[in-house]
């Protein structure tokens, strides 16, 4: 018998991150072709190359083959190793782009991950370091990943020059807990972090004021911090942002963020973030749109039981992810409208976990 791990084929540059993550977790070989083959500037971008490098660093025995034109890659995943790592992210994407796949992999490493990432901490495309710390990591706690889970923002770095630094610490687990999260509860507190680097520190206060003008009407438990970084810790470029999160009685977290734009007053940034938050809260569900993929991923990896979660409608990314999960794991979700609430746009996602066990973990 010839033993070759099964090869999964994809095409297109989109959804690269979660496809790579799925391949590494299942150990299936993956081949992605037609990466921007029609583009003026064909092939992989610098940040994608950098991501591949990072994945190579965090694993042992991974073989990555990139075609001469850069429009096709072949990844033969090794095992997730972890340990103390450092990576310089390119200035084209923020740290969130790199950290999101790492968060999905890190709990299944051989050694606890201690990753230092350098680059841009906040931009408009990806989850900022603040949201990753305050929103994404609490989502991991739902699955029993809690002890020693931390994200330290050492330095902030705004685009375009960056210069920020974060440290991500993640413990390893044997198996994830099964999620049963159907009760959204009610919003009980709102927190926020406003930061301004290399600009007038008053900017953050102005954002907070604007935001409070809307939020104060709902609940009294609102704390919006202004986070101050000075000197070397404030990166190389000026910028400011406000990230908000609303936590419910059942610790559902909805979040929103707005980043400084040229020619826009900080008040408007504050209002924009606040309105996004309200829109997110209005959409409801137990998991906000930005974290659907993360939660679905960990639901699939749970023990061989039924996991349930109430979420809003899937985003296009989520839909593609669900399809990719089926290709890799053979697991599909049952998605039904919530029958307990007549007339509600929220959906109940339930799946049968694959019983994924961290095989990389060393015994004794």
């Amino acid at each position, binding site marked *: 018998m010839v033993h070759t791990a099964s090869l999964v084929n994809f095409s297109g540059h*989109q959804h690269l991150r979660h496809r790579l993550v799925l391949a590494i977790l299942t150990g299936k070989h993956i081949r992605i072709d037609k990466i921007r083959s029609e583009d003026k500037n064909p092939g992989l971008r610098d940040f994608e190359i950098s991501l591949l490098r990072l994945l190579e660093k965090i694993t042992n025995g991974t073989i990555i083959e990139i075609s001469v034109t850069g429009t096709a890659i072949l990844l033969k995943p090794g095992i997730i190793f972890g340990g103390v790592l450092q990576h310089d992210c390119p200035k084209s994407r923020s740290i969130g782009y790199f950290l999101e796949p790492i968060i999905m992999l890190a709990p299944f490493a051989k050694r606890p991950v201690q990753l230092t990432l350098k680059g841009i901490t906040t931009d408009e*495309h990806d989850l900022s370091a603040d949201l990753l710390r305050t929103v994404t990591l609490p989502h991991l706690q739902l699955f029993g990943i809690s002890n020693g889970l931390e994200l330290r923002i050492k330095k902030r770095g705004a685009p375009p020059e960056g210069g920020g630094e974060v440290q991500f610490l993640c413990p390893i687990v044997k198996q994830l807990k099964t999620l049963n999260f159907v009760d959204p509860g009610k919003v009980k507190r709102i927190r926020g972090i406003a930061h301004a680097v290399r600009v007038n520190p008053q900017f953050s206060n102005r954002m907070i004021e604007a935001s409070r003008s809307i939020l104060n009407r709902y609940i009294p438990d609102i704390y919006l911090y202004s986070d101050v970084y000075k000197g070397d810790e404030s990166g190389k470029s000026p910028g400011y942002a406000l990230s908000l999160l609303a936590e419910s*009685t059942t610790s559902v977290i909805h979040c929103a*963020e707005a980043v400084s734009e040229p020619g826009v007053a900080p008040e408007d940034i504050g209002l924009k973030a606040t309105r996004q938050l*309200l829109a997110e809260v209005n959409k409801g569900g137990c998991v906000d749109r930005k974290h659907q993929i993360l939660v679905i991923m960990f639901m699939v990896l749970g023990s061989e039981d039924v996991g349930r979660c109430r979420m809003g409608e899937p985003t296009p990314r989520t*839909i593609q992810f669900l399809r990719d999960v089926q290709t890799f794991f053979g697991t599909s979700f049952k998605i039904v409208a919530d029958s307990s*609430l007549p007339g509600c746009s929220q959906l109940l996602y339930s799946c049968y976990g694959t019983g994924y066990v961290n*095989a990389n*973990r060393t015994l004794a």
Partner: protein
Amino acid sequence: MDDRPHKAHRPAQSGAKAEKKNKGKGKEKQHGFNEKAFAPKSGRRADRQGRRNVERDQTRLHVPLVNRTPDDEPPPVIIAIVGPPGVGKTTLLKSLVRRYTKQILNDVKGPVTVVSGKKRRLTFIECNNDLNSMIDIGKIADLVLLMIDGSFGFEMETFEFLNILQSHGFPKVIGILSHLDLIKKAATLRSTKKALKKRFWTEIYQGAKLFYLSGVLNGRYPDTEIMNLSRFISVMKFRPLVFRNSHPYLLADRLEDLTPRELVRTSKGKCDRTVTVYGYVRGTNLRQGHKVYIPGVGDLDMQSIAVLGDPCPLPNENSEKKRKLSEKKKLLIHAPMSDVGGVMYDKDAVWVNVPGSFTRGNKDVPQGEGEQMVMDLQDVNNTLEDAVAKSQIRLFGTSSKTLTVEDDKGSISGEKSDDEEYNDEEDEEDEEDGEDEEDEEDEEDEEEEVDEDNDDDDGDIPRDARNTGRTTHRKIMRTVPSSSKKEREDVEYADSDSDFGEDDVDEEDRRVRFSGEDQDQDIPSDEEAEAISEGEEGESIPKWKLNLSERAQKSTSLSRKARVKDWTKLIYSTNLTPEEIVGDKKEDDLKEGDNMEMDEDDFFQIKKTSSDNAEELDMSNDPVDPEELKKWEDEDMLESIRHLFITGGDVDAEQGDGGLNEQGVDADVDENESNEDGNVPKPSSSDPESARAAALAARKEALKRKFDEQYDDPESSKLDFYTEKKDEMARQLALNRAEFEGVDAESRAIVEGYRPGSYVRIELANVPAELIENFDPTYPIIVGGLLSTEERFGYIQVRIKRHRWYTKTLKTNDPLIFSLGWRRFQTIPIYSLDDHSIRMRMLKYTPEHMHCYATFYGPVSLPNTGFCAFNSLSGDTPGFRVTATGVVLDIDRSVKIVKKLKLTGVPYKIFKNTAFVRDMFSSALEVAKFEGANIRTVSGIRGQVKKALPKPDGAFRATFEDKVLMSDIIFLRAWYSIQPRKFYNPVTSLLLSNKADWTGMRLTGQIRRDEGIKTPLDVNSTYKRIERAPRRFNPLIVPKKLQASLPYASKPKLMKPQQNQTYLQKRAVVMEPEEKKAVALLQQIRALRKDQMVRRKEKKVEKKAERQKKLAKEEERKGEKEKERRKDAMRAAGQKSKREADMEDGRGRSKRRKT
């Protein structure tokens, strides 16, 4: 004194004495448990007793394990009957089968499934004496009936099997002693039983159940003994085993080759086959898309899985009612490879066993189903083609229903003609398969078949070229109606229709709804477009703002009410891009998509990304639509979501959010309860007031319950860890069951896989032809599901210990056969030991009585999986075959095992503390690599490699802490890393015609022995005498000048040997006469003494010889006796074996001690 025999004592039967005795007995019985006797005498004792009870309680507790097997319809319990040949396994199986089904099997092959009770079915399987079978059986058996020959005792295979069990999770074991009738003396019998029981208990656990079976009556064991055994089996409880609780598996009870005959013929039987296996799913849910491993064959891909009707169903209410009508049904037995009811299925023939002489007209001989059927077949006059031509056909005379064919298809003859012969065959086989079931079912099958045919014809589904005849028909055999392929298609059509209907509704709604994400994809309806355009124009008071809140509310409520998309279907079974799914596609587009997915085998394909969105970023923040955010500037809109905050209260409860509110509050009270509440579908709140009242009442009830609980017994709400965990598991299992209760079987199988307990048919592709060619039903075929990690390969580090009964040591780089997970494979391990946690140091041999590590290349298994290893699996291996046992520790893609490497060199020039060393390296480059390395002389002087010297090659300068000598040997201790060889050789025993003689890679020595090749002898490796020249020291020379200045004590006292004769040498000695006499006398005395000693010695030798002679004589006598004794023993053994042989011949069965 007197030789009269003593009278035996006779106890009094009546009278005072007897009464007294009886009274005593009765009293004891009456009282039963005497409380006083066990009451503690003192407080301290009571305390101790209490503590002991608590401790004993704790020992009862085990780590709670989830049982993945459903309770309502569990798969049959696998009962393996294991033992050496000739011990009575088949007899026991037949006896047990007869006990449960009242049927006598003559030729037992493969698993036999019977119904044993309301909730239990049993699968019996006999394990042959091959070690491969024992390994496989040990991995799947729930209960092992371990048979031991009472008249012989334990055999090596028994212990080997127990060791295999131990390393793969220990199932329940019941020992059974047979052949006890061969022991005639009662005392011997008793002592034998006792000895065997003691040994058995040490092997399993103290108090393990051991059964005794006496002789064989009518080819079976006595009914009472079998009944007792079956009772023990029926009450047996099984604890889930960790490995089986995480892997799906099935024991194939049937195997069929689906390869087109033509292909087999053209390739002369060498082509890879498509094979279906049938069996009950066990362990966890079996899912499509996973790989399976068949031990003895290899990794295989599952092409399809289909649930079939249970061939041996548990009794339910309906069947119980039926049972009274036909007694036949009570005794269900499913054994496709054995001869149930006198019918036996061979690979390509069916054999009917007819008792006595058989003639066709003979009505005296009872005719079984099989005979009847064959006779019916013989009676068929017309060919099927003729029969089809008629509108109604009766296949057999006994068929109660006729087959009906709609006559409108006359034009299909071309297609049909090549199907025809298959159909013939098909029908035949169908009959065979359906035999053990009742007739009705058979006919249903046939009907279905015909239906299927018609469907195939008029519904123009493109037929797969390979899929002719056999394959298509096979699929629907014994299928649960809902899961047959035809049905599936129907369902799909129906579903998509309803889909369209829903989308129609959707379409209408969108006229009122407006959400930003929809606008950019859809063609906005007139009103909406107007609104937008106006909004853009009139900047001062945007019109869309006017009645914003009402519209918002309306939109939300409407979207909640009527927007029901079947997300599962949209995502998994259409070709729409994610963007199209989110922004509702038009109906016709959807239809198109649905049509596209008709080739449903691979309905899930990646849509090619069009080039126009090449610059779209892979980002997790969705782009914000400023338009959508604008609506939050409105005060009413802001107010409308107040109910989502805790301060919102119940004000908005009427707006269809009653359930939500209630849940939110409940969550504070009790999370679990609220979850349960969430499961219960709310009655549609037609009357919001009543709904609210009901919700309030429910809340009050919950609070009251909670209060009562806490008030009555505050302790009870606090559970200990164990019960808490168990409750948690029970809750999860209940949820697992409840979640997919209402879902239809088809989609349920997609989401959760095939549950344990369902009877499935798995189609396997690319199966080696040898499996079919050399199929032997007495060897179990196990289909073990693999986890995704287990398909990979890597280096596996295990903790290993050589078995104490295995006599040789294990050597690094010698091949070893592992049984790990489902797999059996040969690989090459490297043994190592942790060296002070600094490095893994290679070991040449495994240590005695100690664990060590072994690292080898092979398929990955999860850490904590047990394994056992063998050097050889063949039956003729002398001694104990289990070589080592252990557990998996770690999995990696690289290994770091080192062995010590000592480089030696010699100084060729010595300065003070510096020396030039040569002969250690061969080039300057090598030296450069080792710069700074620590070196040492044999005498213990430490030093360092400094720098390479230009000449000679490989010489270097080194510094030492002291001056070294020219005679010193200098060495460098280094570590050389080694990699295990990438060798993986699966044990493919099932592919051989003689399954017992699988041989893997042999050792070099073995090959040389087999081939008769001499070991090559290297001249340099031979051992020679080492000649060491005596060391010559030069004389110490102290310069004269120095000598002169030394003090006298330190001056070398060197003197020349005396040259001239001494005084005494110069003189001659002349003795006096007396002196001469004395000397002479002394000489004489000495001579005499010498003579005496010689004579004494001679005498001693003589005596010794005599004694030797005597001893030899005695030895001879003793030897004779020993010879006699041995002769006797051999005679007895010979008689025994002869008797056994006779007995076996008598029973018409094979091979005792044949292997």
